[in-house]
């Protein structure tokens, strides 16, 4: 390995070392010092961030072309670091009294974060598969992290069973692609597919697209591969639910975009149609079912399913004739994911604060939140407005970019279904806001949020608004990162 290769891998290496360090310190340190472990993890993330920034703007392939450093990959490294960092902030103190284990959570979280960075940078089907599995396996463990909690256990088993089936289907699809083209390298697959030697085998590629979609759809929780989401979101420790809803989803989109755009541009007619159909059912079903939820984590699960549906519109609006353009769907996807990261993590931070004070995740227990802690209530309002897509929030601008891509290509039906879904979603977010703002509290005691939670909330809130009000640099970032 040359120095330049090590440098290119430095963010991943730092994450790996930090994860191992946390694991080792957890063994060495006594109980009284284990409180420092999350800060070690945060330090590791800061190092990763520094390494990512140092690599900014570079474009190289490594390790025999299985792994690249490019703006797209670096963008998702940034997303992974931000998501993990905020999740760690929200998790401080969360596990007290819930489980005796402390360090494992943080080291596993760092490994999951590593998996996301690998997924975004992988340009070889084998690497893609390994990275996805790394994320999946760490996620199964983290979902079942509350060993004494039956719901957490059940969620982990469900997640594992669904995940195993999805990844088997995906692997099967990858084998089709390898069989037809004789390569696992994404660029070589594309070259083989466009050389015109495919003959009568194009149906194999189409089946491969369907099977790959099962695997990717599972990660982004798109209908009909979403059934795991509500139970897993409800059962997993809430900080990890937040991570799943943001980090895991972003990684799924990264892989989906990379594989479809790099390996299968010649079959875009097929996957665009499939993804469009998936998008419509995903946002509609997610929003309609969310209306009936009584538990806020389940509601946010369906809301995150619906959000995946909106983001899929951006992928549908990929325009091969103008891959890097102002209103390209892919830059919309990236901007949306960035805005969604802060918005949804913020919403979960409020959920965590309420859960820690009341021990409940029932929506009816949000009654009178405005009286019990006005900051939490106002923050929740802003996050929900962003999820609906009302200005001046990042969610609005994300939707604007996605829908403008759709309008530009004259996919009017998709855009109209999308905005109508936005209106429907207002109804269930309102259910929580109604409790928080309009109804009197059942219990007058104020809800206090820990310092770290307040920091996470403040970052999420400022960014949710700031990304829209000072939009230009963030849009530039999404645009430059969308160039594959």
């Amino acid at each position: 390995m040359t120095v330049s290769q090590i440098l290119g891998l430095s963010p991943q290496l730092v994450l790996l070392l930090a994860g191992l360090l946390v694991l080792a310190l957890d063994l060495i340190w006594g109980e009284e010092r284990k409180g420092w472990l999350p800060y070690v993890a945060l330090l590791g993330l800061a190092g990763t961030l520094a390494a990512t920034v140092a690599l900014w703007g570079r474009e190289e392939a490594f390790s025999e072309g299985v792994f690249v450093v490019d703006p797209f990959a670096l963008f998702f490294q940034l997303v992974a670091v931000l998501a993990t960092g905020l999740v760690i902030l929200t998790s401080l103190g969360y596990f007290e009294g819930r489980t005796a284990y402390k360090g494992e959570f943080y080291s596993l979280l760092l490994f999951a974060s590593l998996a996301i960075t690998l997924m975004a940078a992988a340009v070889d089907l084998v690497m893609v598969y390994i990275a996805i599995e790394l994320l999946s396996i760490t996620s199964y463990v983290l979902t079942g992290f509350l060993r004494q909690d039956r719901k957490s256990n059940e969620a982990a088993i469900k997640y594992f069973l669904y995940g195993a089936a999805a990844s088997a289907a995906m692997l099967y699809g990858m084998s089709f692609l390898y069989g037809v083209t004789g390569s696992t390298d994404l660029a070589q697959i594309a070259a083989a597919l466009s050389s015109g030697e495919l003959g009568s085998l194009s149906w194999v590629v189409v089946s491969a697209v369907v099977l790959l979609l099962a695997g990717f759809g599972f990660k982004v929780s798109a209908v009909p591969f979403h059934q795991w989401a509500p139970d897993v979101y409800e059962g997993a420790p809430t900080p990890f639910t937040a991570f799943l809803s943001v980090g895991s989803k972003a990684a799924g989109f990264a892989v989906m975009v990379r594989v479809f755009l790099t390996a299968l541009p010649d079959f875009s007619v097929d996957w665009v149609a499939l993804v469009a159909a998936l998008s419509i059912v995903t946002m509609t079903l997610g929003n309609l079912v969310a209306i009936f939820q009584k538990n806020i984590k389940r509601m946010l699960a369906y809301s995150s399913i619906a959000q995946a549906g909106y983001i899929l519109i951006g992928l549908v609006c990929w325009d091969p004739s103008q891959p890097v353009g102002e209103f390209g769907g892919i830059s919309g996807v990236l901007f949306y994911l960035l805005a969604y990261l802060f918005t949804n993590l913020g919403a979960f931070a409020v959920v965590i604060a309420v859960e820690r004070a009341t021990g409940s995740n029932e929506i009816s227990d949000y009654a009178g939140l405005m009286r019990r802690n006005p900051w939490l209530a106002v923050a929740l309002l802003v996050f929900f407005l962003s999820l609906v897509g009302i200005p001046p929030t990042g969610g609005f601008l994300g939707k604007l970019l996605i829908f403008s891509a759709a309008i530009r290509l004259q996919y009017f039906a998709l855009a109209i279904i999308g905005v109508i879904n936005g209106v429907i979603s207002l109804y269930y977010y309102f259910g929580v806001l109604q409790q928080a703002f309009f109804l009197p509290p059942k219990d007058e005691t104020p809800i206090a949020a820990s310092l770290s939670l307040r920091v996470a909330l403040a970052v999420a809130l400022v960014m949710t608004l700031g990304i829209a009000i000072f939009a230009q640099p963030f849009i530039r970032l999404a645009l430059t990162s969308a160039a594959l």
Partner: protein
Amino acid sequence: MDFPILSVILFVPLVGAILVLLIPRGKENWIRGLSVAVSLIPLVLALVIWFGVTDLGGSEMQYVEEAPWISTFNVWYRLGVDGISAPLVALTALLSTLSLFYSAYTIKVRVREYYFLFQLLQMGMFGVFLSLDFILFYVFWEIGLVPMFLLIGIWGGERRQYAAIKFFLYTLAGSVVMLLAILGVYFSTGTFDILEAARLQPFADNWPLAVLAFWGFFLGFAIKVPSFPFHTWLPDAHTEAPTAGSVILAGVLLKLGAYGLIRIALPLFPDVFHFYTFNVPVIPILAVISMVYGALVCMAQWDLKRLIAYSSVSHMGVVTLGISAAAASLGRGQELLNSAPFALNGATMQMFTHGIITGGLFFIVGIIYERAHTRDLQAFGGLGSKVPYYYGITLVTAFASLGLPGLCGFWSEFFVFRGTLRIIPLFAVIGAAAIVFTAGYILWKIVQYVFLGAFDEARWGKLTDMTWWEKATMWPLIAVMVGFGIYPAPILELFNSATTALLGKL
């Protein structure tokens, strides 16, 4: 660079809202006083720009401020006023100040939140009237929704939560469709500049898409106006909102929709607008139904506040009718074109006068409800001699509402009908029936049931007349009603120069 007067008008309420948050706990009177004082700044500046625009003729955009916002997408922070928007900015400023002042005496719970939200709402309203960029326009259009939703939901009446979400869902449904239309216009013209887009005429060579985009805008505006059949959110929202909320809803928020029709739908899609007002006259039909149906529903109401709410549906129908007539006149010869400014002047004048009059009427309902705790018309009777001052104020406002000559409501309806009668006479004739019904519900329902007839001494013996602050809230409105009723020339000339210029570009 000149003094950015429009930006100051726009953001002073935001500063006020933030200041309200900083006032220490327990000093609620400071919050009230500060908010009213801060709101005087945009009021004064609004009058300054009104006079400024009048001096310069009002036909072009004045006080324009421009700065790139999201340069990648050519989105600008672009503000400006002309003869149409300047009076509406002043209307917003006046009603806001009066509402904040009136609320100082009537809002007793969650005062800080109330004043914070109210000033945020005020910023949103200013923003819509001042924006010359579609995205900016849309952002402010939506910003107003959230505070109004909370104002209704927290400080409203019995069914406030239902009314709040209904209001939010309806308006959001309209505005998201409008957003798609905005994007369509952008991809057709390459600009988010409202005036530039009108000059470039989006979808000039693509009739089906032009129709689609037009209806996208129209739906958003028609829900806000509200035009029949999109009006069902209005009676609930207006009835359940707190008094000042109803004043702003009826006085300003409805005008946002009408303003959109004049500023965006008409200049951008004159041909489509013409087609649907003349060849297939859907829009004037909706306008006339709103007028007549709204007035008839008023006749059947026993809840005073609900009655006033429905009267807005009727009166805003007049605005839509006037705009429709202007659109219907296009391309049909010079003689009809000469009548178009009458209709459009009437429509813009009606926006202003309806804001003043209905704002006043909602204050009047609030004043009696504070004392009686009922709005049931059958419960009153004979109050004229018990509360003569209140009776007098109500009479002036109610007569202005029914269009009595000498008060400002007369001029706007007169000009709308003057224009419409030449251009689309059938609708003018049918619409005139609404005027009769309006006189009916004002005289029969309001004046007779509340002030005349037998007086119930046992129930209303302790009723007190208006307090000084209630008088102080009403007098500026009365002054405007009488002032522009007797001498409407200044405001009409301002509207006229702007609407003539607007029509000249079509």
